[in-house]
C-alpha cells in the first residue's frame, strides 16, 4: 500500500465520520457527540494531509501553511468563544463566508498553475463554478453579517433599476465565464471573480433582516457546493463528499426553515419583502397618533399573580437584553404561587430558527416548560395572560388577517386569543419585518416600556408584593 492510498483511506474514514455527524446533529440526543465526531474526523484528515510528500516538499510553503493555521486558530477560537449567544447567527455567517472565500481561492490558484497548459474545458468549468459560487457566498455572507450586526439597515435595500442592474451583472458574468472557458485567460477569470463578489452583494441587499437566517442557510449550502467544486479541481474525494453533503442537506435545511416561516424559498429570496413593505407601512401611517394603553409594573404584577395560566412569548428583545434569567425567575415565582406557566416558542423567535431555545436552555429553563408554536397555540384561548417579552412580528395578527401585509401567511403565536395581552417593549418601534402590529392597539393589551431585563425585574418584585 502506498502512502497516498493510506491517506485516501483516512479520507474515507473522515467522510464516514461526517455522514454520521450530520445524522447525529439532527437529533437532540446525539447532536453534541455528532459535532465532536465531525471535529475529530476533520482533525484526522487534516493531520494526515501533512503526510503527503508534495505538502512537505518546500519548507517555505510548509512553514507558511502552519503560520496561517496558527494565526487562523488564534483569531477563530477567541471569537467563537466570546461571541454572545445573541450574536451567534452573524458569527456563523462570517465563518461560512470565509469558507467560500477559501474554496474560491483554491480554484483560482489551480487555474493560475494550469492555465499556461491550455487545460480541458471541463477543468476550466470546475474552476469557474468554484470561483463563482465561492465568491457569491463570501460577499453575500459579509452583507448578511452587516445586516444582523446592524452595521447597516436590516430592511430590504431597494433602488431604482435594481432588476436591470441584477440582469446586467448576471449577463456580464455569463459572458466572462464563457470567454474564460474558451481562452483560459487569467485576467478574465479575475474579472469573473470580481463580478461574482458584486453578484453576492446585490443578491443579498434586497432580502429583509427577518429573512437573513434562511439566507445564511442557503449561503452555507453554496459554500458546500464551492468546496465540492474545489474537490473536483484537486481530484479529492473527501472535499467532494463533505462539500456535497453540506450542499445537499443545506438546501433541505433551508427549505425547512422557510417552511417554519410559512413561506416558500422563492418567496423569501425574490419577493423582496421590500416591495410590499411600502404597502404595509403605508397603512400604519396613523400609528403615531393612535392611543395605546401602558400600565405600571404593579398593575401588571397583580394581573400576573392572580392568573391561572400565563404564557410567556419571548422574542429577540428578550435576547438582546439578556433577560432570559430574569424571565425564568418570574416564571418560577409565578409557579410557586400555583400559576400555570409555559413559554411559547415561535420557530423563528430570536434571529434564527431554534435560537430562542438555545437562549432559554442557557438560563436553565426546563424543556417541559418550552412549547413549540403548534403545541402552544391550542392553549392560547384558555390563557389568562400572554406576556410578550420583546417579540413583535411573531405575534402580529396581520399575518392571519391582512392579505396585503408582508408577513401574511406566516404562522404566528396566537397571543391575541389570550384574555389579556401584556407587551414588554423597548419602544413603539416596529419589529424586524418593519411593520406595525395591530395587537399593540387592542383594548385588551397593556404595554410596559423599557429594557426587557429591567421591566421583568420590576415585575418580579411586583409579584412578590402582590
Amino acid at each position, binding site marked *: 500500500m502506498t502512502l497516498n492510498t493510506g491517506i485516501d483511506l483516512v479520507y474515507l474514514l*473522515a467522510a464516514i465520520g461526517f455522514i454520521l455527524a450530520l445524522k447525529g446533529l439532527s437529533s437532540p440526543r446525539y447532536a453534541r457527540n455528532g459535532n465532536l465526531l465531525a*471535529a475529530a474526523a*476533520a482533525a484526522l484528515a487534516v493531520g494526515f494531509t501533512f503526510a503527503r510528500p508534495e505538502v512537505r516538499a518546500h519548507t517555505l510553503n510548509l512553514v507558511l501553511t502552519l503560520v496561517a493555521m496558527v494565526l487562523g486558530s488564534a483569531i*477563530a477560537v477567541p471569537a467563537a468563544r466570546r461571541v454572545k449567544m445573541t450574536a451567534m447567527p452573524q458569527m456563523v455567517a462570517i*465563518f461560512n463566508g470565509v469558507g467560500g472565500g477559501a474554496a474560491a481561492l*483554491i480554484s483560482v490558484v489551480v487555474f493560475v498553475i494550469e492555465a499556461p497548459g491550455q487545460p480541458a474545458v471541463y477543468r476550466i468549468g470546475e474552476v469557474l463554478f468554484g470561483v463563482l459560487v465561492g465568491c457569491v457566498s463570501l460577499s453575500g455572507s459579509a452583507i448578511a453579517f452587516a445586516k444582523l450586526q446592524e452595521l447597516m439597515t436590516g430592511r430590504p435595500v431597494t433602488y431604482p433599476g435594481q432588476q436591470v442592474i441584477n440582469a446586467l451583472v448576471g449577463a456580464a458574468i455569463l459572458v466572462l465565464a464563457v470567454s474564460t472557458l474558451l481562452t483560459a485567460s487569467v485576467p478574465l477569470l479575475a474579472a469573473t471573480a470580481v463580478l461574482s463578489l458584486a453578484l453576492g452583494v446585490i443578491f443579498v441587499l434586497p432580502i429583509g433582516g427577518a429573512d437573513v437566517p434562511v439566507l445564511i442557510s442557503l449561503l452555507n449550502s453554496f459554500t458546500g457546493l464551492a468546496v465540492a467544486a474545489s474537490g473536483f479541481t484537486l481530484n479529492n474525494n473527501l*472535499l*467532494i463528499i463533505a462539500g456535497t*453533503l453540506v450542499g445537499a442537506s443545506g438546501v433541505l435545511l433551508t427549505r425547512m426553515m422557510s417552511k417554519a416561516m410559512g413561506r416558500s424559498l422563492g418567496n423569501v429570496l425574490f419577493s423582496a419583502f421590500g416591495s410590499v413593505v411600502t404597502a404595509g407601512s403605508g397603512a400604519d401611517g396613523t400609528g403615531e397618533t393612535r392611543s395605546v394603553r401602558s400600565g405600571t409594573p404593579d398593575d401588571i404584577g397583580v394581573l400576573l399573580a392572580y392568573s391561572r395560566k400565563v404564557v410567556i412569548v419571548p422574542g429577540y428583545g428578550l435576547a438582546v437584553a439578556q433577560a432570559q434569567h430574569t424571565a425564568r425567575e418570574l416564571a418560577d415565582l409565578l409557579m410557586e404561587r400555583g400559576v400555570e406557566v409555559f413559554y411559547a416558542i415561535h420557530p423563528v423567535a430570536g434571529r434564527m430558527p431554534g435560537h430562542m431555545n438555545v437562549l432559554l436552555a442557557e438560563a436553565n429553563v426546563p424543556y417541559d416548560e418550552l412549547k413549540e408554536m403548534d403545541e402552544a397555540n391550542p392553549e392560547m384561548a384558555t390563557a389568562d395572560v400572554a406576556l410578550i417579552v420583546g417579540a413583535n412580528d411573531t405575534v402580529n395578527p396581520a399575518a392571519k388577517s391582512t392579505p396585503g401585509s408582508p408577513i401574511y401567511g406566516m404562522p404566528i403565536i396566537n397571543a391575541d386569543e389570550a384574555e389579556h395581552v401584556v407587551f414588554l417593549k423597548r419602544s413603539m418601534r416596529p419589529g424586524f419585518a418593519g411593520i406595525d402590529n395591530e395587537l399593540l392597539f387592542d383594548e385588551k393589551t397593556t404595554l410596559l416600556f423599557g429594557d426587557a431585563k429591567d421591566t421583568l425585574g420590576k415585575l418580579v418584585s411586583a409579584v412578590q408584593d402582590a
Partner: protein
Amino acid sequence: MSTGIIQFLTVFVLAGFVGIEVISAVPSILHTPLMSGSNAIHGIVLVGTILIMGEARGAAQITLAFFAVLLATLNIVGGFVVTDRMLEMFKAKPAERPRRNTGGGDRREGDG
C-alpha cells in the same frame, strides 16, 4: 473526458443523495446547530488549501494560498467551536432544579 471525472461525478451524485437522506427530519430547535455544524464540516476545505499551498510557486500563488489556508482555518476552527458552544446548552439537565429565593444578593445568616 477522462474516466477520472466520471468517477468523481459518481461520488458527487451519491453524496448528494446521502446528504438529503441523512437529515430527513430535524426538529426546529436543532435547525441553528445543524446549520452551524454543517458550516464547520465544509471547513474541511482546509485540506484542499494545504494541498494547494504545496503546489504553489512564486510570490503571487503563495500569497493567495496563504490566505486560502487562513480563511479555511477560520471556517473549520470557528465553526466547530461555535457549534459546540450552542450544543453545550442542550446537555441533559439534572431533574432537580433549585428553587432560588429570587436573585437579590446572597445574604449570609449570622453575619452580625
